[in-house]
């Protein structure tokens, strides 16, 4: 049922090349899920988030010091190895300082026609961030217009924002099914569904979502649900890991990842000024820890998800060396534990050693199971 999503996820470059052959636009690589894709799409381009490939690599050492996260190095490796040689534009919406190095090194060493660094505010909790960010988005729009030689009208933006909202709404619908006692969708399928949405035209993605939703609603799961788990943390599109977790008596029913729910959770609200509306959508998004201060708005959101999806336990994962998540892990664990959700912390690298990880997950499932008994 999910084969289209798997195909898009695994053959993202084929999709992009095919898109280029059929459209009069360019593919724009987006670094970070904060990228306001609506502007790129409305400019007639295909926004495509740059993710890693989960292969050990030896090409980034001259560019990024080894104490930065494996994900940002994996991302840069894709560029240095020429995997995105069809991609003419790149842009970053500012968040952590790890990933921006992938962007600046890419700009230095991988040929592109267009690059844009968007100074997305980190303090999203101040009201001043709204007008400031809208002002920065105007610069991004101007720059895209100049590059593409075509106007990005407010109407086109509104239409795109509606298309994106539809995508968000449809993915919400799928996520809602995961609240069922035995969800008709596995965590791995959900992960691939969201991750594939980074790579393809949202029209295609929406069409596929609409096609599968009725089927999905009547799908009888061919497996037991087991323990209901939530997975929370930094960038994670490690499908092999989820597959392993779901092979030992558990189902991942919800997540808080920028590659998962965080990407599509909230929608654009239309209040008149479309640029301000889009800015607000990103300001109001469930935050990445690097933007979650002075208050901790992220924790209550995570807790709400855990409760709504009725999870038995939470796996907190983190890319090795990811400072933003390292800054949240200790209080997040305390917070979840004090709300009666057991947690298991795991550190991720480009490849995850499944053997040692399985031992940890199985031990955790024992704990979760025991809690259920008493």
């Amino acid at each position, binding site marked *: 049922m999910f084969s289209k999503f798997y195909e898009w996820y695994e053959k993202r470059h084929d999709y992009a090349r095919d898109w280029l052959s059929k459209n009069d636009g360019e593919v724009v690589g987006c670094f970070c899920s904060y990228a306001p894709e609506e502007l790129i799409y409305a400019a007639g381009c295909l926004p495509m988030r740059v993710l890693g490939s989960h292969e050990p690599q030896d090409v980034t050492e001259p560019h990024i010091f080894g104490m930065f996260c494996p994900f940002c190095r994996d991302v840069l490796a894709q560029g240095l190895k020429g995997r995105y040689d069809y991609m003419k534009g790149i842009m970053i919406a500012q968040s*952590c300082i790890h990933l921006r190095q992938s962007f*600046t090194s890419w700009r230095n060493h991988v040929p592109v026609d267009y690059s844009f*660094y968007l100074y997305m*505010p980190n303090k999203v909790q101040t009201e001043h961030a709204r007008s400031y960010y809208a002002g920065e988005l105007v610069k991004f729009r101007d720059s895209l217009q100049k590059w593409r030689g075509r106007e990005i009208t407010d109407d086109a933006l509104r239409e795109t924002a509606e298309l994106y909202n539809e995508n968000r709404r449809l993915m919400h619908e799928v996520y809602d099914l995961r609240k069922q006692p035995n969800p008709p969708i596995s965590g791995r399928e959900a992960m691939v569904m969201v991750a594939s949405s980074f790579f393809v035209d949202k029209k295609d993605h929406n069409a596929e979502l609409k096609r599968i939703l009725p089927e999905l609603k009547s799908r009888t799961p061919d497996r037991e649900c087991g323990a209901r788990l939530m997975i929370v943390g930094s960038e994670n599109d490690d499908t092999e890991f989820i597959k392993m977790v779901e092979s030992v008596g558990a189902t991942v029913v919800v997540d808080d990842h920028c590659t998962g729910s965080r990407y599509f959770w909230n929608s654009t609200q239309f209040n008149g000024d479309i640029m301000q509306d889009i800015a607000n959508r990103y300001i109001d998004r469930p935050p990445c820890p690097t933007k979650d*201060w*002075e208050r901790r708005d992220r924790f209550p959101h995570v807790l709400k998800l855990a409760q709504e999806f009725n999870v038995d336990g939470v796996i907190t994962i983190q890319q090795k060396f990811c*400072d933003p998540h390292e800054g949240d892990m200790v209080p997040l664990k305390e917070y979840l534990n004090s709300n009666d959700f057991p947690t298991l912390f795991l550190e991720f690298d480009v490849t995850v050693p499944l053997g040692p990880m399985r031992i940890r997950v199985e031990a955790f499932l024992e704990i979760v199971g025991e809690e259920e008994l008493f």
Partner: protein
Amino acid sequence: MAEYRTEPLKCWNKAKELRLKYYKDYQDAHKKGGIRWTGGAWAFDAIPAGLGRDVYNITGEPYGASIAFDRKLSLECMEAAEAKGWARDLCSYMRNYWGSMYLNKYAFGGDYPKPDFCYQDHICCSHGKWYQHVAEYKKIPYFCIDVSVGPYKDLDENRLMFVVNQMHECIEWLEKTTGRKYNDELLCEAVETECRSTSTWAEICTLNMSKPAPLDEKTMYSLYVHGTLAKHSKEMADFYEELRDEVKDRVDNNIVAVPHEQCRLMSDTQPPWGFLKVFRYLEKFGAVSIGSLYTFGLIGIWEWKEDGTWGPRTTPMQKGERITSRDQALRILADWNLSKPEWQHFYDPNLKTEMMLQIVKQWQLDGVILHLNRGCEGLSCGIMENRLGIAKTGVPVMTFEGNMGDEREFDEKRTMARIDSFMETLGITIPA
């Protein structure tokens, strides 16, 4: 081989006293009914100065470095932070600081003095999170200003005003938090003083262009620190002027840092504080580290001059301007700080490479030693691109790995061996 005259700085003791007085004043603030706050060395400290003349702060980075210098205490602090579950690769100043807070041990004796509030700015991933935790742990209010509006060369009204608006918001918050009426005159005075102190520090650094150099970086570490403690304070600004005059005097009288100077280097990022003997080791080769973008530009404020050189930024007062209103003060304060050299690489490593190469040229350097600092992701951001950019121009560059605040991540023997290799490639041998 020439042997130059060398002697200690006359104002050395004063430097030491000022620093200790700063930490003592903070500790004793409440005895006199004063206010104490904690936050980063890059926080806009001129703003809380408007709350009165009895406002004292400790800045976390130099405080964390002071702990690092005491290796035994540092290890205790690190272990206390790890016992809470924090990752070992987080900012080592932050871990030292948190450890000192958990252990209730002030690095300058006594208990960790509880701050009245936290006040910070955010440019690296740890900045905002550091005091979020302190505020939660100590149950005190917290305000943090986001300064990540891009490099100074691209600053415009929208970007400047994002920072200025937050500053205005902050003043309202300060009044509410402390119950004090805010004094704009004190703010204006503090901003003027900050411009004076940070430009004067840059001026001191330019005196090190003199060959042989009057100062070495190890000495500069003990002097630039005052700017990281309270760059807005009159005491510190006056001290920098006194220091500048003395360094000028050293230049005029050929008093130097390293008696057998035969090789001029610069470093980068914070050093491993527990192992400043690295610099003594360099001296054996007659190699002097004249500073770094870090010692020059962490606190010093610089600008590109019309003739293409790089020098101390002209202060508003030097241009004949006086600061008289809150909004004007905040605009100047934001603009001034956003031009900080050490903030530019957060957006583009090439901007830092350009400044580093300018230092190589103006200060007539033979090579560059980059500290790949595992303790600070902020200043290590883009450092490998800096290495590539420098090496591409043919300037010899060496790297060594370490950690400014966590001695467990520094391998002394292998670092010295690496310096040997580097000196060998530069053709420098230890003078007989």
